[in-house]
């Protein structure tokens, strides 16, 4: 891969990441599962478990249908204070592998604002992702949000 190819790939994946946080931060939650492959995995796990090799987290989806269920439940079933996320993502590192899959990692911070306008640093963490190129473009085959902010404030209604 030439340096130019590497740069283009980095920009393509950076665009995927920008698209990802845009749908979550701008109330387009129904578009969120579409950024994954049909058999994609998504999970949110605390760093203390990830570091210890323990599996438990707070959201776990092992296919796109489960992700659509999560969004439908967020929209229709669960009760929570209206809120907005703003993701700040930095430090994107990409590592192409031989099988056409690319590993990605990046830092994230989510600032959550409630309906009275109070903003808190809701969660800091890192993404550990695997993406593949499909007919529709780059899609997540796996996304793990590993969070440092171990005590989740009040609840989590929207994926990070």
């Amino acid at each position: 891969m030439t340096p130019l190819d590497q740069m283009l790939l980095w920009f393509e994946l950076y665009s995927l990441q920008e698209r990802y946080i845009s749908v979550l931060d701008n109330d387009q939650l129904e578009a969120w599962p579409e950024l994954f492959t049909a058999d994609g995995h998504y999970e949110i796990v605390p760093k203390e478990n990830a570091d210890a090799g323990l599996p438990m987290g707070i959201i776990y989806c092992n296919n796109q249908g489960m992700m659509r269920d999560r969004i439908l439940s967020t929209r229709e079933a669960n009760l929570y204070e209206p809120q907005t996320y703003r993701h700040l993502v930095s430090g994107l590192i990409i590592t192409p592998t031989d099988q056409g899959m690319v590993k990605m990692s990046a830092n994230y911070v989510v600032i959550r604002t409630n309906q009275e306008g109070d903003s808190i640093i809701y969660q800091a963490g890192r993404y550990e992702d695997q993406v593949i190129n499909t007919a529709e473009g780059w899609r997540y085959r796996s996304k793990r949000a590993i969070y440092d902010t171990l005590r989740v404030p009040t609840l989590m209604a929207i994926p990070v």
Partner: protein
Amino acid sequence: MGHHDLHQAELPPLAIQFPRSDGSRVPYEVFSSPAIYEREQERIYRGPTWNFVALDVEISQPGDFKSTYVGDTPVVVTRTPDGSLAAWVNRCAHRGAKLCTLPRGNATSHACLYHQWNFDSRGNLTGIPFRRGQKQMAGMPPDFDMKAHGLQKLRVDSYGGLIFASFSDTVAALPDYIGNEMRPWIDRIMHKPIVYLGCTRQFVNANWKLYFENVKDPYHASLLHLFHTTFNILRVGMKARSLPDAGHGLHSIITATRIEDDNSSAAYTAQDIRSMNEGFHLEDESVLGYVHEYEEATTNHIQSIFPQLVLQQIHNSLVARQLLPKAPDQFELVFHFFGYADDTPELRELRIKQANLVGPAGYISMEDGYATELVQRGSLREGKSSSVLDMGLSQPDQQDTLITESLIRRFWTGYQALMAL
């Protein structure tokens, strides 16, 4: 543990009145008063109670330790070299520094970083730098008694793989404290070796007792948590229980069980969940799967052992929730997830998947923290007003129902006795 065991020294009265003696009216100031919070630390967490601190399997090896809390007091629970358990206040006996600064680990000794005073895993003082001085300069006094300067120790015991600690010398033995009514329900869950699967934590801006009310409140389940209703998931033929312990009434168990069960069938799957044809549907109902693991096909087992434990089985999700007060208007929940050592890979996967049901992002639990915060916010300036807990009041002995506030009333009468209110 009966009421007589709750007796402690007389205290000056607080100007807080419970309008009725049956626990059905609770003045809101008990959820925000600093004086109440202070008294709780002394009379509950440092009083005649056993406080859940860890699962046995979290500290299975000699030297393993875990930092945690009894009330808001930092404590460390350890596995000593001979395999027994110990617990001590996490405060150096020298100058009061927090001694153990790691959340977990393995160590045969614990040295304070300030002056390197050294303690063994039981909390005994084993070493003081320059104790005998240096170059004819005096060290510690010759009569300084090492044995008298160990860490402040707690009693510690385990039941069914659950470790509890107590500051009290007078509290009943742990099995008696848990009581005859509650022990079989712990035995039901903890009947074979378990494996620790990790913990998650939730921080809520509300008083800890609002959460204790919540886990004794089967009435809210289908009203606050709309997941089943929204997705038209029929739960036909549920048998319910709402049982307090027979003594102080501070512990309780709530269960919901399918009654049309065939106990011989090995496994229930998502096909058992019938949906109607209209409205919203889950694409993947496996999150509500149920593998039959117990004699009775109970889908919900919510058991509170006062004051720090809620033992939970929801479908195949197994959790020991630790409830920790942080301030009058703050508490933390630590969800200790576990499975059984003989889980099949499929069953283990189901337990991980069903973490979606519980905890801060749980389909049928995320509202609980929010609801307690709404009470905290709504009642802050209404300290002399009271909540109304009359559901099921006319039939106090009815236990085969979820439409009742009887367990909350029992909690408050036990709480008043313990707190001398």
